[in-house]
């Protein structure tokens, strides 16, 4: 009999705040995190808005209580903060017995520091502090998180673009179910860097204005940064008093259509959603709310919409994209949105899809997201989608714990 997997802690840092309380406050006051670029040094400052975490690296060191002479990337700092919030909420359990896994999703590692070193290195192959390269790999920030929390045992990092942290959540659950672990701290982190801003810009999928997910006139996405982590625990060892919600479904598929574009019939998205519902053992009509991937690009929103129609027919549940608040946090997206899904279940709310005006014309039955914050809901099941480059598509299903 498969063990139940409970969530006992959540932590998030993003453009809408340094923890879950601030995130919720900003959502309730409809304050999006999109703004002119403040921290990132790029020629695009003033031209493209971003969803930056509103703290400098110096301030992040202070928040984390870490000596600023310790060589840490922005990625590591963000991850440490969110993971710690989740861990503390779960009762700050002792993590040194090898029964806890720490799995983080990340795409560009310590690129925020690497790109500075590389500029010096390119000018002169003997120049620059080469030890920066030791913080470059994706694994580095995960190890920083594990060390910060005193975790030994199993640590790993998944890098599957924008589905990375949804995939770590799935991995943690599967490890617990197979008896390899009792607990897993899972989610992901990504920090903004010139590398990613320019990459998305050259693909022409960035919005020069504030993004409008699922809108007919959407222009692209706003890049964001941040970290979102949850603590998963086995039903065998969990303290019931700590349970926030339950993770009941998860699946990963591959679109296998194109390196960056989603298939016109939304195959990967469809398979991911269907797979997650199957694992959860529920029919589509049991879903009360979908936190869509909803980046605001022409391609994703259309493809995801088509996949939703394939799953839900004409009975599309209430849905919204929270990326209008947080931006697209890349490797952290799955984790950030998992935290928001758990918060939604805890507080029985549905998030508004900001700046929505006109439904996408391609759909005969219009796909209209929620545009107001809805409270006092009766939510049992939430479906959360995360779709990435390389056709990597993942979905998670969360259940309210009553």
């Amino acid at each position, binding site marked *: 009999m498969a063990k139940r997997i409970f969530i006992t802690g959540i932590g998030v840092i993003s453009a809408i705040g340094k923890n879950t309380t601030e995130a919720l406050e900003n959502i309730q006051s409809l304050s999006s995190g999109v703004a002119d670029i403040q921290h990132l040094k*790029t*020629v*695009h400052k003033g031209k493209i808005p971003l969803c930056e975490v509103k703290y400098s690296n110096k301030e992040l060191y202070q928040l984390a209580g870490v000596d600023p002479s310790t060589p840490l990337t922005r990625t590591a700092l963000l991850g440490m903060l969110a993971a710690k919030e989740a861990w503390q909420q779960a009762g700050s359990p002792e993590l040194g017995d*090898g029964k806890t896994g*720490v799995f983080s999703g*990340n*795409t560009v590692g310590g690129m925020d520091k690497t*790109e500075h070193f*590389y*500029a010096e290195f*390119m000018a002169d*192959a*003997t120049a620059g502090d*080469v*030890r920066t*390269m*030791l913080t470059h*790999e*994706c*694994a580095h920030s995960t*190890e920083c998180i594990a060390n910060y929390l005193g*975790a*030994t*045992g*199993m*640590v*790993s*990092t*998944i*890098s*599957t*673009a924008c589905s990375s942290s949804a*995939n770590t959540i799935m*991995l943690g659950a*599967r490890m617990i179910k*197979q008896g*390899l672990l009792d607990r897993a701290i899972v989610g992901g982190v990504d920090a903004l860097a*010139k*590398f990613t801003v*320019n*990459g998305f*810009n*050259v*693909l022409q999928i960035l919005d020069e204005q504030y993004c409008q997910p699922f809108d007919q006139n959407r222009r692209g996405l706003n890049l964001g940064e941040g970290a979102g982590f949850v603590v998963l625990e086995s039903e065998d060892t969990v303290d019931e008093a700590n349970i926030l919600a339950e993770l009941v479904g998860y699946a*990963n*598929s*591959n*679109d*296998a*259509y*194109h*390196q*960056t574009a989603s298939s016109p019939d939304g195959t*990967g998205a469809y*398979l991911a959603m269907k797979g997650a519902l199957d694992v959860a053992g529920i029919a589509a009509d049991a879903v009360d709310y979908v936190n869509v991937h909803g980046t605001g690009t022409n391609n994703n929103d259309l493809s995801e919409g088509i996949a939703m129609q394939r799953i839900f027919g004409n009975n599309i549940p209430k849905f919204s994209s929270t990326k209008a608040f947080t931006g697209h946090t890349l490797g952290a997206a799955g984790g950030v949105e998992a935290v928001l899904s758990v918060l939604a279940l805890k507080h029985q709310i549905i998030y508004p899809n900001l700046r929505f005006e006109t439904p996408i014309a391609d759909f005969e039955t219009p796909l209209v997201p929620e545009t107001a914050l809805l409270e006092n809901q009766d939510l049992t099941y939430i479906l959360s989608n995360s779709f*990435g*480059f*390389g*056709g*990597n598509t993942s979905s998670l299903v969360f259940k309210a714990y009553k």
Partner: protein
Amino acid sequence: MKPTIYINGIGNISPQDTFDQPMGTELAQAESAFFVCQEPVYKTFIQRKLLRRMSRVVRMGLAASYKALEQANNPTIDAIVTGTAWGCVKDTEKFLETIIENNEEYLTPTAFVQSTHNTVGGQIALMHHNNCYNMTYVQGNVSFESALVDALLLLWEQKATNLLVGGIDEQTDQLKVLLKRLTCAIPEKRVMGEGAAFFVLSTEKTATTKAQLVGARMLYRPNDTAVQNSIQALLKEAGIEALDLVLTGVANKTVVDNTAHCTYKQLCGEYPTSSSFATALAANLVQGDRATMQALHLEGDTPKHILIYNEDAVHTSMILINNA
């Protein structure tokens, strides 16, 4: 009851002559501080118009996966799991260099798109029109072990009957410069390598079965007790009392008492997913492959139970291979 897991196909691109046979008879030597792969002619596997966008690491991964599938008689694949620590280095460098040189103008989208770590896994899925589970692990020296642990989970969960799992890391000229500066690469003393090794794992034993994969473990900052406990747990899973050989990435260290030890990195160099190369070696050895025995200066009986072991400052890992 957990199903027995078999290795039914191997595709191994390494600094040795390992693509068309388990091991070449003439051993290649490293040049100074670097060991570079002997590569197949990619045009024989991949159409020219697809090949042109693929960086070297993607070509290596694709070719190794094709070979593994071919050896296993092309079964339907239910999952693709890869491990890579360095990722798509060339494309990352290319995009970064252009950003710096051109001050964020005239940038090439292809390099950015190909720089994501899951490009190899994604391309394999694309080439085979495969919608199955697809995962990429990037955890330093346990990237391949992470992929193996996930692959084993899938097979035990019965989510997969046949799957592809692989480890891959590429060197580039720039990376070599950096590795030297970091004193990871020291001419004549510490050789850095690269490689791509892919395996078809299956719950079914077939005519192409080469070995049994008993299990894999990766430990983060373990103490000696935790390491020995893991080894014992693996032996118990295999139902054996003792090992025949420890194939180790660490010279001059006794991992298991009263057991023959043999290093492998003198054949492939040091790189994060070198244990995937060692897995191919171990699978060859349990079949009694002479050339592999000779390459490792092993004599006597064919080893039947082999523990692959590796460690660094924070990670310790082990993989247990049995004859099938």
